[in-house]
């Protein structure tokens, strides 16, 4: 081989390196995510460098400021027209900046903000060794019941890492519904899932249960991620690309071949159908749809209650956002294949959640099953495949997340010697002793049940109307029947609180700091405003209902 040939090989091999363009990143449009990620990283540094005494306040401050700033950035983008006319795909096709993404990001940020208030609450647990403590383990690494745990409690340690962890999770959730290719989707999923697994294990009381929940969540989450990843591989095989737009083009038949290496598999519908179904599995796991729901009750019950509220609200918003984008952008050409299947899933989810909830005796498990039933209701809106379907789902998620966080915040207040008194029998007669707390909880339950003048009604009405107009009348009938079944167990709790005799050794209602009070008050306010005057927000969701492609 001559030297020129060697040289030529060398240069040809080197040439493509020069051709890789510098990625074009629209920092301003990614600001919400970047702010949260930055704050999370800063939070890690705070753990390393700020003295233990002032860490709590620093972290709370950092988290609140970051979430507020990120929300302001979302509002700024929306006002700047990125939700409607200027919607486009940023970061080299990885992230969509459009109406649904901004609406969901705004919802996630607001929900996380009020949830962070409950994380920071330190007045509910009786003071340990003269130190105020929050709901999280003194030292997560210490074995429950061990000496090192006792020492950590005695020293008044708290796991302030929850704030950066939560911020990382929020960052993942912000990307998840905006992800515009399958790899970004997968990375976002892992970014928000891994911190959640950890957060679930951090309960101060009932630590074994909490750790069990975390392990289960992790195992099943990993299992579902594997399905998702396999689905991504199959879709890549089908379309030769992970980009949503390219896959959609191949599905529609507008693009024939992309990569000669994949010529054997490209356009093979079996790959598309199986890959699509596997990706759906991953999404449905996160939203908690039957039959991928079984982790929900155990994890909701075991996780520290503030985390449960955060997770139940924000994860659901993010996961439904991603599901919407997947079904409306990537697979609309396949709707005749996936709609019947989703119909069946929506029906079993609504009925399953509602029916199993009837016999629950733990308030957190009850709310978990309720969240499953609600996932079914939202799926009914997803199935509509109309702009109304999108806007109704967006509205429902907004309404639902505040009710959920509020309800779980109330759960943190009702306590006895063993921590939170979550067994329903202990809630008997709560209305006699703490009328205000019971009344607030009743408002949330009525909203869950979908009684008019609460946000639950407006939301349910919107999704059912969208479903009916989208040709899913039968689904609406099932939805209404499930709502009737669900109303039973919500009202049963209200009856229990107000019309049963209080037990002599019943739990006490802790007096929260303004933090939790704010969370609950915001929850009630949003619930009532969205119930009494929902039109503005419905219009807002309507404007935000077009996906960029």
């Amino acid at each position, binding site marked *: 081989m001559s030297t020129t040939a060697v040289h030529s090989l060398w240069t040809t091999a080197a040439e493509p390196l020069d051709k890789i363009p510098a990625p074009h990143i629209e920092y301003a449009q990614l600001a919400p995510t970047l702010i949260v990620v930055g704050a999370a990283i800063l939070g890690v540094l705070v753990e390393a460098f700020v003295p233990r005494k002032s860490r709590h306040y620093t972290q709370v401050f950092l988290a609140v400021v970051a979430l507020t700033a990120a929300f302001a950035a979302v509002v700024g983008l929306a006002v700047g027209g990125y939700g409607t006319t200027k919607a486009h795909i940023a970061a080299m096709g990885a992230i969509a900046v459009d109406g649904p993404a901004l609406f969901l990001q705004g919802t996630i940020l607001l929900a996380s903000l009020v949830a962070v208030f409950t994380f920071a609450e330190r007045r509910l647990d009786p003071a340990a060794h003269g130190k105020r403590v929050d709901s999280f383990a003194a030292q997560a690494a210490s074995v429950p019941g061990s000496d090192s745990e006792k020492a950590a409690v005695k020293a008044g340690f708290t796991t302030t890492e929850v704030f950066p962890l939560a911020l990382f999770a929020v960052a993942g959730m912000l990307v998840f519904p905006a992800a515009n290719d399958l790899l970004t989707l997968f990375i976002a999923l892992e970014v928000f899932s891994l911190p959640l697994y950890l957060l679930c294990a951090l309960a101060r009381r009932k630590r074994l249960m909490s750790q069990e929940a975390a*392990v289960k969540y992790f195992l099943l989450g990993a299992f579902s991620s594997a399905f998702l990843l396999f689905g991504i591989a199959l879709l890549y095989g089908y379309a030769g690309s992970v980009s949503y737009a390219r896959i959609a083009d191949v599905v529609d038949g507008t693009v024939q071949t992309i990569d000669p290496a994949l010529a054997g598999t490209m356009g093979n519908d079996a790959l598309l159908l199986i890959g699509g179904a596997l990706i759906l599995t991953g999404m449905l796991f996160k939203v908690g749809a039957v039959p991928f729901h079984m*982790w929900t009750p155990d994890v909701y019950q075991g996780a520290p209650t503030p985390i449960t509220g955060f997770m139940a609200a924000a994860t659901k918003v993010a996961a439904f956002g991603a599901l919407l984008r997947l079904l409306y952008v990537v697979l609309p050409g396949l709707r005749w294949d996936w709609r019947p299947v989703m119909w069946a899933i929506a029906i079993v989810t609504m009925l399953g959640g509602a*029916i199993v909830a009837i016999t629950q005796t733990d308030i957190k498990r009850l709310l978990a099953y309720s969240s499953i039933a609600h996932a079914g209701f939202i799926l009914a809106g997803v199935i509509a495949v109309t702009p109304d379907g999108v806007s109704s789902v967006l509205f429902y998620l907004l309404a639902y997340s505040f009710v959920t966080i509020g309800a779980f915040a109330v759960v943190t207040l009702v306590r006895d010697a063993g921590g939170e008194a979550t067994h329903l029998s202990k809630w008997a007669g709560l209305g006699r002793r703490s009328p205000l707390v019971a009344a607030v909880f009743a408002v949330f339950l009525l909203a869950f049940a979908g009684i008019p003048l609460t946000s639950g009604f407006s939301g349910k009405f919107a999704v059912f109307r969208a479903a009916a107009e989208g040709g899913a009348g039968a689904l609406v009938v099932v939805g209404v029947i499930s709502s009737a079944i669900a109303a039973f167990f919500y009202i049963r709790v209200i009856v229990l609180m107000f019309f049963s005799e209080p037990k002599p050794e019943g739990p006490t209602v802790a007096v929260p700091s303004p933090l939790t009070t704010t969370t609950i008050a915001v929850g009630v306010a949003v619930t009532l405003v969205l119930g009494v005057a929902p039109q503005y927000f419905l219009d807002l969701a309507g404007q935000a209902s077009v996906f960029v492609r």
Partner: protein
Amino acid sequence: MDNAENLIALLVAAPLLGAAVLLVGGRRLDRTGHWIGTALAAVSFVVAVVLFADMLGRPGDDRTLYQHLFSWIPVGGFQADIAFQLDQLSMTFVLLITGVGSLIHLYSVGYMEHDERRRRFFGYLNLFLAAMLLLVLADNYLLLYVGWEGVGLASYLLIGFWQHKPSAATAAKKAFLVNRVGDMGLSIAIMLMFTTFGTFAFGPVLGATGETSEGTLTALGLLLLLAACGKSAQVPLQSWLGDAMEGPTPVSALIHAATMVTAGVYLITRSGAIFNAAPDAQLAVVTVGAVTLLFGAIVGCAKDDIKKALAGSTMSQIGYMILAAGLGPIGYAFAIMHLVTHGFFKAGLFLGAGSVMHGMNDEVDMRKYGGLRKYMPITFVTFGLGYLAIIGFPGLSGFFSKDKIIEAAFAKGGTEGWILGGAALLGAAITAFYMTRVMLMTFFGEKRWQPDDKGELPHPHESPRTMTIPMIVLAFGSVFAGGLFSWHESFVKWLEPVTSFEHGHSPLSAATVTTATVAVMVLGVALAYLQYGRRPVPVTPPRGSLLTRAARRDLLQDDFNHVVLVRGGEHLTRSLVYVDHSLVDGVVNGTAASFGGLSGRLRKLQNGYARTYAVTMFGGTAVLIAATLLMRAV
């Protein structure tokens, strides 16, 4: 002023905010709550005055303002608007409600001084005002209904405010239940309206009466009348009013003068277009009005409880208004004019009665009063002016408004006119009689004071300034309002663009009617003087004639209700309960049990093992894939 319509919502919002703050605020507001409530009622009044001044600045047919806040989930043709309409009719009510309402708030500061639940009381008072303002400001029947029910709720809370007394709790329940009957009428009327006109808004509904069959309009009119009977305590739904005296006296003043009972008159006047086109419904309205005005007057004659005597008088005076409203365009303006003047003097009388009770250890039996004029001079004078106004003493408010109604009744024409006019005249005579009786038994004659439960004789004294100032202000209204309204027919001209107005053609000249009215008034006063002024009043009531005994029992209204409605209802419910137990419960419980069983079985799937969950997921995915592929294959 530009954009004055943006202020309308503030009228409702201020007292509503007060109610929210006071009821949610808790004990930390105990010391300031009453002033917050009073201030917010006053804010509403000030806004009302501003809007009134603004309204006067515009020509008569351009005075209506609209404010649309938002629509509640429009679905097809179903449009539930939260929107307000402020025209001359609403303005009149708003001024009365907020003005008299604010005075009653102020009075309550003194009256409820020693009540430990005073903050809550003011919260309810504010809620009452807000609901009533919503009722008169709504621009559609659906929103009006919201206010209507709000009034019902607030009255329930206030009548039963002293819930530790079983009688108060019962009275509140009674008021609520009787009102429900009327509410049913209104709700059915609204449904009928929607099916007939396809909308709830006043404009389209009342503008479309020309194209609607008379049968529908008559049905609507009768249903609206039923509603009005409930809220305005007209026969046959009058029975709650007397018992409602169990509430604190300011509540009685509020219910009787500014809110609640006037709602029925408002509803009929507002729906005038429907009644104008349905003569049969109008006949029903005037009949109800005439019967009630006599009914209330007769009951008023026999009561020894000062508040119940006044309650009878309210019933009777509202009867006059309903009668006038039923006369059509010749009567609407006078109905509202009497409503306003009545608002002044009846509020004054009730506050006076409260002041007397305040000084007499909460004694309400007039047979145990007597000679109080020396001890409570301000109360005596203001109550006396209210008294002169209500009996229609020439020159005072009640004279002008009542005289006009009697005239209009005669002007109805034919036999009807004579009967209605005669009833109204007779009512005027009886009014003079029983009000003179109240006056004489309370302020004149011997002291007949009795020791109270603790054995203490009362020490009557004048009430504190917060109580006397409202009474004085109201007395001014009682004296001058009527004259002011009649000056060049100013009130009629003011309302004409909304209610329309025609001069009635009475078979008797106006002078004859006026003379007759004054004559029967003098007759009534003279009879009362002969019976109660010249002779000593026995402390224990005499047995009395059959009519007196019946009147003491409210003309047997409760006995009638008990025999016909309660017993009948019991039989009906018993049979329904039987059907419910055997048939409905069987189905319902069966369904519930099967779901419960299903739930129990499904729950077992949730066994706590992660491996089971994973297998379920795996199975689910397999089914999902299989189903997707199958869908393609089919």
